[in-house]
């Protein structure tokens, strides 16, 4: 089987459309992020989280109203995978033994014939959350710096560094934006927690993988076709590597989708972020990273 045997797409032509698409996506993401705010999960917000497993399905709305009084504030209650499992998240600052007992005894009052067992608890203090947030931010910034420097050393041209990092920003902002906008619409947790940060850095790594392969070919072709116009040469390089770009995206997308479907509730948000990331990362290495290099070169030569 052969896809894109000898493709001759004109990527430079599609560039204008890509700029518009990217522009719209980024704008929508930024609007989403600024108006709705990032949906921080317990890791970055702090709080207490419990997963209870019942024998029979229960109604989350009922549980929420039952617990609102005793906990002193309205908790977040939602289904967690199976209809018999619910996740309860509260910002009650009390001692966790007491909070857990309050929840347990109220659940028992509400469903005397439907006993619940604690499957999972997660308690994050506000300071701890603050530290994690800072660590995650540092990790992402540090990753961008390292990538910038590495590409600078390997390709000896800062336009490549800038192109790659611009593409990464592009990807991260869009995935973050889509995440924020979809958070209430999907039936699983899409709040930003540690696993999502890991997913983001993996997206960064993946998108970079793609971009570097294209850059590598541009470097190679620029030695072979010395007289060719730069934009045309970039276009040729994109076509040369198109088959590989698509195949790798397809295999990665396969496994990430499998993870999304079969990986269990804990990995739902994580694998969803990766799915988005693979698609957007592939798109950005085809249209954004190299375009940025071409545009920068053009500006600099004028």
């Amino acid at each position, binding site marked *: 089987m052969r896809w894109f045997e000898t493709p001759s797409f004109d990527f430079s032509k599609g560039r204008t459309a890509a700029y518009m698409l990217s522009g719209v996506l980024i704008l929508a993401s930024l609007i989403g992020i600024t108006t709705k705010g990032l949906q921080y999960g317990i890791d970055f917000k702090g709080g207490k989280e419990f997963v209870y497993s019942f024998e029979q399905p229960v109604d989350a709305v009922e549980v929420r109203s039952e617990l609102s009084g005793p906990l002193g504030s309205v908790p977040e209650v939602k289904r967690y995978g199976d209809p018999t499992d619910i996740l309860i998240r509260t910002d009650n600052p009390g001692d966790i*033994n007491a909070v857990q007992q309050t929840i347990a005894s109220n659940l028992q009052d509400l469903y005397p014939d439907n006993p619940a067992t604690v*499957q999972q608890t*997660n*308690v*994050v203090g506000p300071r701890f959350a603050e530290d994690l947030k800072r660590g995650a931010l540092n990790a992402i910034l540090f*990753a961008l710096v390292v990538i910038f420097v590495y590409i600078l050393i390997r390709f000896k041209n800062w336009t490549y560094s800038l192109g790659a990092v611009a593409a990464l920003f592009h990807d991260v902002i869009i995935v973050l934006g889509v995440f924020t906008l979809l958070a209430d619409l999907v039936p699983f947790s899409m709040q930003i927690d540690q696993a999502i940060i890991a997913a983001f850095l993996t997206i960064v790594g993946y998108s970079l993988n793609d971009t570097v*392969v294209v850059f590598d070919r541009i470097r190679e072709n620029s030695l072979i076709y010395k007289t060719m116009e730069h934009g045309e040469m970039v276009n040729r390089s994109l076509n040369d590597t198109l088959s590989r770009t698509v195949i*790798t995206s397809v295999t990665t997308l396969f496994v990430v989708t499998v993870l999304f479907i079969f990986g269990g509730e804990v990995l739902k948000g994580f694998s969803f972020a990766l799915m988005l990331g693979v698609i957007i990362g592939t798109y950005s290495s085809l249209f954004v990273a190299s375009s940025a290099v071409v545009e920068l070169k053009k500006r600099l030569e004028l």
Partner: protein
Amino acid sequence: MQNNGTKIAFIVVFLAMSIYYLWPSAALMLERNYIESLPQAEAEQYREENRAELQDLRQNSLSLGLDLQGGMHVTLQLGTPQFLYELAGEYADSTLQNIINVAEQRALQNDTDFIDEMASEFENRFPDGMLSRYYRSETEDITRRSSNQEIVQYLKNQRDMAVDRAMDIVRSRVDRYGVTEPSIFVQGNNRVVVEMPGVSDQERVRNLLKGTARLEFRLTPDANDIQTAKEQIVSYYNQQAQQDTTGQNAGANPLLQVMNTQQVRNSYVFGYAAGVDTARVNELLAREEVQSMIPRNTELMWGAAPFSTNEEQGLEFFELIGVREQVELTGEVIEEASVNFDQATNEPRISMNMNSEGARVWSRITGANIGRPIAIVLDGYVYSYPNVDSKISNGRSSITGLESQQEAQDLVNILLSGALPAPLDIVNERTVGATLGEASIQAGFYSTVIGLFIVAVFMIVYYHKGGAIADLALILNIFFILGILAAFKATLTLPGIAGIVLTIGMAVDANVLIFDRIREEQRGGKTLRAAIDGGYSNAMSAIMDANVTTFFVGIILYSFGVGPIKGFAVTLMAGIAASLFSAIVITRVVVDYLTRDRDATISFG
């Protein structure tokens, strides 16, 4: 071609190493399956007979994270502000308290060291001030003349020592609790992380870890003083109530609404309240005007166990007892402690033996206070306040008022492990139930198998024989990843499994690059052999650049992430290393072998 000997040798060595490191894991899995197939009694016996061997296997096998096997992960933080306040001892004053509070806020905001912030806040307020105003130590040679830098260094040393001590104490408590293979380590400069696989009684573990175990023996004040203070406070709230004419409870004494001060057992008791109301009572008594009515040397403390219960309403009542502020003797003198039962009431009781110095002080205190009660206070709660009948010279004492034998046993463990230098707060806790862990293993296993299958089929369809070779490399790749994880004693977590699945998708990337390049070279008119050579060598720079950058991301994830993210980062890095080796070396050897004859053909689809 001539290098293939070396390459094959490498492959064989890596395979052998992976088998060597994975062997215990496989053996343990077989043993577990075997044990599960046995009836209960025989299984117990088998386990007992092969204890050492099983233990050995467990220690050398790939360990599963708490999210996969169930258990508890707790991060404790040393209360540094309180520790530093107490370290100042008699020199501590409200200014120091204030500086500590400000420094605490600022350290949190700026992500700086608390002690540095404290020093700079102090120097801000007192430009020429000396921190030696608060801190002295003869043993550490910290005197009045010590410079502020010296003191900062001294404080940091003290904190490090306190964290080390806290860790030792926590370890001793966890060991006594009896968890198999707990893992305890220090994180940052004031946190202790405890991981306990298979633990399910969260409440008990929390209490075990948090308890400072400050055992104190205190005298009780004059009973008349407590009664006078009570009358004053009640009448203060009566006045308050008369002024308050709004709301539905207007005119009612807010204190008497939540507390009964009349029908008390004896004159040392201020009053009693239901468990749910104790917080409200504390709030009412904390007011400055009220505090000033309590005699200087007296403190009101809650009893540890309820003194009576109302079964119908499900309420438990606790007494508020007046004790002296001064601590006569602390738990440090306790040498031995054990649980036994009170002959008369059949309630659990902790008997304690003091060392010789403690016994001497105990003898003096009891001798001077015959006929009066002595309060036994643990972590701020009064356990009992028995009347002293006679002078006790053998250093024996006991604690009663315990709810269960288990509580008594935990308390003994805490007492024997020693007191914490400062309170430990739980700042992060994750518990995963065993069933959920099992479900996660299953989900991870299915994801891996299905992902592997889809990618393998796709590769064969797309690259024919070349794809099959890549698949072989992929399977060996997973084997190597597990081998690397086992060799480095890494822990496999659910995100780690996700990392492996992700690696499966991305691992074929190197082969995709090579095979596409071979096809390209063939299109350019090269012979098969030349195309293969060209494909491998020309794809190399792209493969290296792409993988090195991703590896960097792995390193960054590893250094900044905690817990589960570290597991993900480790598998990601192991995956990159393994997939590079299998994609470049293994497939090359196989391809070379298949094309060893001049006229051999091999299809790359």
